[in-house]
């Protein structure tokens, strides 16, 4: 699964640290999601969509292998 979290974060002018604080997670978690090393839970994905004001599908996208 790929995502455009980094782009969405840049649009909102948020650092990884800022986003982590908004979501109540560590900066490492945000970094891992951005680098596709970690797939977040539905709850965290929904929280992300709420912060950016877009749907989950606009942030995350399934790849061929999924």
């Amino acid at each position, binding site marked *: 699964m790929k995502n455009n979290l980094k782009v969405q974060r840049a649009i909102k002018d948020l650092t990884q640290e800022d986003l*982590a604080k908004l979501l*109540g*997670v*560590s900066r*490492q*978690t945000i970094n*891992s999601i951005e680098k596709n090393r*970690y797939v*977040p*839970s539905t709850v965290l994905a929904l929280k992300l969509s709420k912060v950016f004001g877009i749907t989950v599908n606009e942030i995350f996208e399934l790849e061929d292998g999924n």
Partner: protein
Amino acid sequence: MSLSKIYYTFGPLNFTFSIMKDICESERNKLQRWGKFQLPNKYKKIGWSIIIGAFLLMIAKKFVDEPTWVKPVLRNVMILGFLMVSISKEKIEDELMASLRATSYRLALIIGVLYALVQPYITYGIESLIDPGNAELDNGYFQVLLYILLIQILFFNALKRTS
């Protein structure tokens, strides 16, 4: 079949299923609560202090005469310290940490079991080469390995049954 007959046939069965469902629900909640048990982050430092303290005492006891019970007690204290470090929360304990923790426990279990299976044979082999008369195959890990694996299988099945 009359309605009353249907009720008397399936009523108690439904009641039994309902009780079983409640038991399963309660069992699942308990297991999930226990599964999430963690110590606060400050216990990580306390744990490391205990480990270092026990280690220093183990070195120090080599230079003094001490009762036979000191060594096993220090070892147990050290293990307790490692357990505290293992189950203490991170500063920010989020879902990534929970996932990494679960992976690390899985790896630790598999590597630990393999090590405990192989290590006595390696020791036996080396002892056989050095002192063939006194070489002995120690099977001391059997009880703890069996216990850990049985508990894991039982918990997994209980969680699977109630999920």
